[in-house]
């Protein structure tokens, strides 16, 4: 099951979206500020995808993204943004975000993005695992 962390300052939005994703077989972790999200990531290393709101008080979306990418480079981040902050979301992609979606978004689109992001994360992890295996083999002198 894909593990997704949802970070948004709008609590009702997070709760409802979590229920809908849960119903679609996705394991959801929730956070309502950027800092909370970072903490959850540290506590839950199995998170594959983060859905991150761009505009939040305190640590905003872009700054949170930078920190996620700094500490968890393999975790894929999907930015959620309103029409007024599309440019910010695009900036986010330059910082390493997987993609962005306009809020409110279609569930099918979101599921598609989550699936793609999860797959990419899986591929990246597999490549790393393989690289690590090769590295270990080299060390052993096989």
């Amino acid at each position: 099951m894909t593990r997704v962390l949802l970070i948004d300052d709008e609590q009702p939005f997070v709760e409802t979206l979590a229920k809908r994703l849960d119903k679609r077989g996705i394991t959801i972790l929730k956070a309502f500020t950027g800092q909370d999200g970072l903490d959850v990531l540290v506590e839950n290393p199995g998170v594959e995808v983060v859905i991150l709101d761009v505009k939040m008080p305190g640590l905003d979306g872009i700054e949170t993204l930078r920190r996620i990418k700094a500490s968890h480079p393999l975790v894929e981040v999907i930015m959620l943004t309103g029409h007024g902050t599309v440019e910010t979301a695009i900036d986010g992609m330059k910082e390493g975000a997987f993609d962005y979606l306009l809020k409110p978004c279609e569930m099918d689109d979101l599921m598609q993005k989550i699936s793609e992001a999860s797959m990419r994360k899986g591929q990246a992890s597999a490549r790393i695992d393989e690289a690590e295996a090769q590295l270990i083999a080299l060390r052993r002198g096989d």
Partner: protein
Amino acid sequence: MFDQAYYKQLTRTMILSVVLVSFTPLILISGIMGYEFHTSYRNKVIEHLEEVVEKHKQIIDSFLNERLAEIRVLANSFSFNRLRDTKELQELLSALQGYHQGMFVDLGLIRSDGIQEAYAGPFMLGRADYSNAPWFKEVMRRKVYISDVFLGLRGVPHFIVAVRMESGSKDWILRATIDFVAFNQLVENIRIGRTGLAYIISKNGEFQTKPRVDVQGEIPAVLEIIAEQALPQADQTTKDKSEHVAVSVVRSTNDGHEVIIVTTPLKDGEWTLVYRQDASDALKSMYHTRNLGFAVSVLGGVAILMVAMWRSRRVVERIRQADREKELLNDQVIEAGKLASVGELAAGIAHEINNPVAIMVEEGGWISDLLADGPNLNDENFSEITKSLEQIKTQGTRCKEITHKLLSFARKTDSTLKDVNLNEIIEEMIDLSTQRARYANVHISSDLQFDLPGICASPSEIQQVLLNLINNALDAMDKDGGELFISSHVVDQTVHVVVQDTGHGIPQSNLQRIFDPFFTTKPVGRGTGLGLSICYGIVTKIGGDIMVQSTVDKGTKFTIVLPLPNRGEKPEANGDNRGCSQGETP
């Protein structure tokens, strides 16, 4: 916009200024020219009259002296015995009358005892006794004498010319009577204008000729003039014309009009030749010219007044039009400034609306998900759907509040003055800015005096001032967040509203210019440079002021000072009074 009374006052002031500037030189020039013309013309007229009288005096003096000389010639040429012959005397009289058209009435030879020895003439005066006649005594005393006019023995007015001759031990007198009517005509011969006439009076004021109009009322004044003329003068030795002719202007006792009187002595001061003329007649041309000038001045004055009124009204109408256009432009600038403020809010507002919309969409999606399980809902699903519907309602209400707040600010500016509850507006503007402040990591706090009195202002304009200052404060703290503090309180007779931030501050060099139109330090496209200029215009328009204190990297403090309306008095600010209920606190 100024009221009707202002433009009426402006029109009056302009008319008065134009009239004063035009009339003052006109009146001064007219006055000076009129005075100079009056004086010089009057002097000319008087000089002319003096000359005429002087010449006439010479004529009369010559006449009397010639008559006297003729009698003296006769007395010297003929002996007493020859003259006592009545026939001889009659021949001499006829000869004299022939030369002088009857000027001589008669001739008489009188002995030293006063008895007339011989007589030639129309009266029966032979052997008449003149021993007691005043003229006889005067002749005996002086030797030569011209008498005053008197009736004498014949009972008609006449005067005589007589000479005393010495013949041995006895004196005798030759006298001639001068025709009064002929002499009168000679004197009256001087006639100028309608009322000018001449006559002769004696020292006692008795008429020696008969004036053609009644001048009895002027005689006392004439006698006074004669008396003054007779007084010894400091420069009496100078024998110039002024010693002989005196001019005075007196007021007639008959009808009170002014009369010019010119006098000159005759017969060594025993008679006085008097010329009199009404001043209005003598100065008729001057008065005519003066009246003409006055009429021209009045007509010119009326023309100036009409042109001044017409031009002033046109100019004031243009000023009024310009004021209207300026007012319209001001409104448009304020409106543009407001739209700019709304633009600055737009991002925050869009996000604020987008969030509840996103929640509603998700709740709707969640209901669809639950309904997709089948038409028969279990209790848990039913409860979920109910919660979602509640959430949709809540978020819908949230949207409504946001749009209402925005619309209440963005609606067209109404500059009508009203009683304004400042605290309410401050709170509204804080609400409107909360979301933006939240994302900018700015904490807004306030300290509003709970019993703050109302002020007289346009609510929408005050909203704009406050939102502008709040937006500027948020801009100043956009990068690192900070504290925004807003307070309201009464100081003396004013309300102070303070908007203080902990932003980057304003450099000293820019502080003097921040209220200038189009001055901005914001990046191109983010600021119009009109915000503070509009705020300043709005606040000063209602008689208030804006003060600013700023320290770089510490923050900025704007203090808006607004006047409290005088209770019981009509609030006016810079002539602006577009309505405001009196003496009430909203």
